[in-house]
């Protein structure tokens, strides 16, 4: 294994600044940041805030690629500041800009509201024809590992917006639903517990829906979680076409199990230990 060098290298950060109260347009400000191997862009921003300019604003929370807050435009590509190492993408200069295709609130903080609105509009939750069943469940739904795999990949989305920033269709048309919400639509459509596909089709099949996607594939290249939105969207298109032609194979919906404690025990399984609390 190559040794890890501790020597710091000076990298010039070109950071987009924008103060909504005083600036008409964003501008670039440069900072020299000493960078050691392994340092992430997020750590670089902290260095700036601690030592060079305390007014810099950005959004982050988990610093481990889970919360989806720190999506940024790094050297012209969308990515998470917390899981991008500076020396992996820069040797002397690094541009750090807010995610494009969103409004800028301040400095590196984009307003992801438009994405969340679209996400909400496709009903990203299990829909059942019998609503009472959801509100007053009598048991749980059975799902095989194969059925789980048909949508599992699309559940890893952390709603960071990197795909929305990469999409060329969204760059020119703000009304397009975009890769993240449409991936969520496919995630629920493909879930055997869900019965809301036709309801979602009414939105995903419109002129602002999935057929605005031309498979430029940037979303999948940008996604830091390997969700592969482009795949989800093509599968969504396929399903829409089949539905439209009335050719869709009927997927067997989940069967419900009996409520907790009512299932049949397999033989040779020891009884559960006595509770130790309460």
């Amino acid at each position, binding site marked *: 294994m190559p040794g890890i060098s501790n020597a710091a290298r000076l990298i010039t950060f070109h950071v987009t600044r924008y103060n909504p109260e005083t600036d008409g347009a964003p501008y670039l400000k440069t900072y020299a940041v000493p960078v050691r191997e392994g340092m992430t862009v997020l750590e670089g921003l902290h260095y700036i805030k601690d030592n060079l300019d305390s007014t810099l604003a950005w959004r982050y929370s988990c610093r481990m690629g889970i919360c989806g807050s720190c999506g940024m435009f790094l050297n012209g590509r969308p990515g998470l500041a917390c899981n991008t190492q500076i020396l992996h993408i820069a040797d002397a200069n690094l541009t750090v800009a807010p995610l494009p295709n969103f409004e800028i609130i301040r400095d590196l903080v984009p307003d992801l509201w438009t994405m969340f609105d679209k996400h909400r509009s496709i009903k990203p939750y299990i829909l059942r024809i019998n609503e009472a069943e959801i509100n007053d469940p009598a048991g749980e739904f059975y799902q095989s590992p194969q059925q789980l795999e048909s949508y599992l990949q699309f559940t890893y989305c952390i709603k960071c917006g990197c795909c929305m920033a990469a999409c060329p269709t969204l760059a020119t048309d703000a009304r397009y639903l975009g890769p993240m919400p449409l991936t969520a639509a496919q995630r629920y459509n493909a879930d055997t517990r869900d019965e809301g596909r036709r309801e979602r089709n009414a939105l995903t099949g419109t002129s602002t829906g999935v057929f605005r996607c031309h498979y430029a594939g940037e979303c999948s290249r940008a996604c830091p979680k390997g969700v592969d939105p482009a*795949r989800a969207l093509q599968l969504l298109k396929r399903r829409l076409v089949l539905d439209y032609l009335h050719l869709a194979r009927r997927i067997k919906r989940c069967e419900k199990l009996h409520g907790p404690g009512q299932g049949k025990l397999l033989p040779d399984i020891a009884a559960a230990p006595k509770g130790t609390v309460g």
Partner: protein
Amino acid sequence: MSQINRYDNRLGIWGWLGGGRWGAERYAYILHRITGLGILFYFLLHIVVTSLRAKGIYLWAGHGFLHQPIFEFAEYVVFAAFAYHACNGIRLVLVELGFAVGKPIEPVYPYKTSLNVQRPLLVCMMILTAVFLAIGGYAALIE
């Protein structure tokens, strides 16, 4: 309170056309749109030129206006655009109907995406385009 502005950071045409560090499918997409619009423009031009004969103007007859080298070359460009558009279009039909993107998988680093699954198809279609261009070029030269 002072006024709070919002800056609309949508990339617009530049986000569609440029950006620089993109992948092969992105360029295929841009070229597909340009060639599609190009062929459409050619069709419109074609209708204008051929309808001129109603006025007794034959721009293509004998050693007419349209037989200058520049137009011969432009004709080849239209042919090339059509060859690319048709070959790439077949890939898009397959991909967008979900035939060449593979099944959902567990995302394990380094991520492999549907782009990797359909890449061989892209390569085949580009080779097919090149073959058409070569045949077309050869046919044009011996004419």
